């Protein structure tokens, strides 16, 4: 079992590789000094500085609002898709599936410029001069996040079996009543987890937001991107650490929700798995 121990050691190194850079950002966010790379004692000063910078707080608020709106719309669209799709005829299911996967794997820069061209040109056609803003970010984010929610919800919906839904329909309940009384109680954790993932994907997104944003709507990643031109600063570190914090909370809650609801072998939300 020598190979086993060797691989175990390797795995530890791999996890160090995965987490050390993230840890470095977080640790150095607590550096009291002005220079990022020289440790001068523990301090939360830069978080205070970041939270007192109006650009950062407004970008943070904006990002959270977009991510929330996106999560709600993506949940509605994605859940509807996940409920109807698994048992549709394959000639209609397959292209829709392919479309949903494409929204997840297309190089983001291609989707971003496509959305930009579309919003500007289509906007011109219908007489909107300046179409870019929070709504265009929201619309674009929902495209790939509806697919994220659909994947998560569908994995659960298929694995839990649908005999209860069938019974409900057979007993004369309509889709809405069945959804409220039968599906929701069983699927709520998956929908919530899908929504949380959609939230974090939107909250973290840079490329799409960057291209379809208007002049006065800056998300947090866009702000950080703009600041990187001036190099790494402790305040940016603190901002990045806060972003990681928001995302981690989302992930942990999503995982806890999915796990509590039973099947922890869920590999939901992972494209291609």
């Amino acid at each position, binding site marked *: 079992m020598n190979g086993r121990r060797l691989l175990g050691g390797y795995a530890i190194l791999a996890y160090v590789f995965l987490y050390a850079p993230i840890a*470095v950002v977080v640790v150095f966010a607590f550096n009291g000094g002005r220079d990022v790379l020289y440790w001068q004692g523990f301090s939360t000063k830069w978080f205070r500085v970041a939270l007192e910078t109006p650009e950062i707080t407004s970008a943070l608020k904006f990002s959270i609002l977009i991510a929330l709106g996106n999560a709600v719309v993506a949940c509605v669209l994605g859940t509807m898709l996940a409920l109807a799709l698994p048992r549709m005829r394959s000639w209609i299911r397959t292209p829709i599936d392919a479309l949903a996967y494409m929204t997840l794997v297309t190089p983001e820069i291609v989707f971003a410029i*496509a959305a930009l061209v579309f919003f500007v040109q289509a906007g011109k056609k219908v007489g909107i001069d300046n179409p870019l803003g929070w709504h265009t970010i929201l619309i674009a984010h929902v*495209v790939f996040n509806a697919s994220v929610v659909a994947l998560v919800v569908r994995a659960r919906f298929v694995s839990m079996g649908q005999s209860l839904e*069938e019974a409900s329909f057979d007993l004369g309940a309509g889709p809405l009543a069945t959804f409220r009384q039968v599906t929701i109680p069983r699927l709520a954790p998956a929908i919530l987890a899908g929504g949380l993932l959609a939230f974090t994907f939107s909250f973290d997104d840079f490329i799409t937001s960057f291209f379809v944003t208007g002049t006065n709507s800056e998300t947090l990643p866009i702000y950080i991107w703009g600041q990187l031109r001036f190099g790494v600063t402790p305040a940016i570190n603190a901002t990045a650490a806060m972003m990681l914090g928001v995302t981690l909370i989302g992930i942990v809650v999503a995982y806890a929700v999915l796990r509590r609801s039973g099947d922890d072998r869920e590999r939901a939300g992972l494209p291609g798995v």
Partner: protein
Amino acid sequence: MASTEAEPSRRGRNAARAGGPRYPGWLVVPAVVWYVLFFVVPLGFIAATSFGQVEGFSDIAYTWTLDNYRYLWDDIVGDLHLYRDIFVETLKLSVVGTLSTLVIGFPLAYYIARYAKHKTLLLLLVIVPFWTSFLIRAYAWLIVLDPEFPVFRALGLTGFLEQHEILFTPNAVYIGVAYNYLPLMVLPLYAALERIDWSLVDAAQDLGDPPWRAFRRITLPLALPGILAGSLLVFIPLTGEYIIPVILGGNKTFYAGNLIAQQFLESEDWPLGSAIAMVVIGALTIALVVYARALGRQEQHS
């Protein structure tokens, strides 16, 4: 869509197919409309724009000209080959990036799938970085690769690293790519390896196969779907990679994604930018067809 029909007939048809009554098919309509309107149609817009030209200040005239493609083609076959070099570098980045995530990720996925006790937890630990901000994960290397990074100072490597600069070189881009895309590779690898019945490998070794041959003849073929899926998940987005070269490559690295972005952010030549994007999509489509063929052949074998 079909659900406007009378209830009994729908139920009858459903019963004829597998399973009983179900949620109506029209539930897919909102999502499909969203996909078509805000994904398919926009892709159609850049296809159309790639045949247009700039008019006045950053306005687009849809003139159905081949000029943008001709311009790219002339560059690719010509003496200047600025764009050709960038495309070649992009291909190199995508291939090397995919291979490095495979080489780094395979032993990890193998360990989790075959030996680990807490498989779910360990897999989750691979996924978590994937869900955190891509931008910040790239940014983190800006600190870690700095010659002044405290660990390097403590090891006395600062001078050495200043001479053999990493940050703001292609090497930094490659490190960032291997790091940021690793989870996307490990997940499908794990999914394939997890299904392997390891007693087959043990049996082969008991019957006299040395470990490497047992690996080559049993593990590798069974892991192949995971390898192909992971490669796809890494390779496709890498062809349009934009963030990592900008952050870690300084001004010295330039790939197709940066080229596209430049046409939109600086040059204001949307038609050319669209044409470059179409070239990337076209090349990807060809790669995907080849992939699908390979997959088909693999399925025939097994």
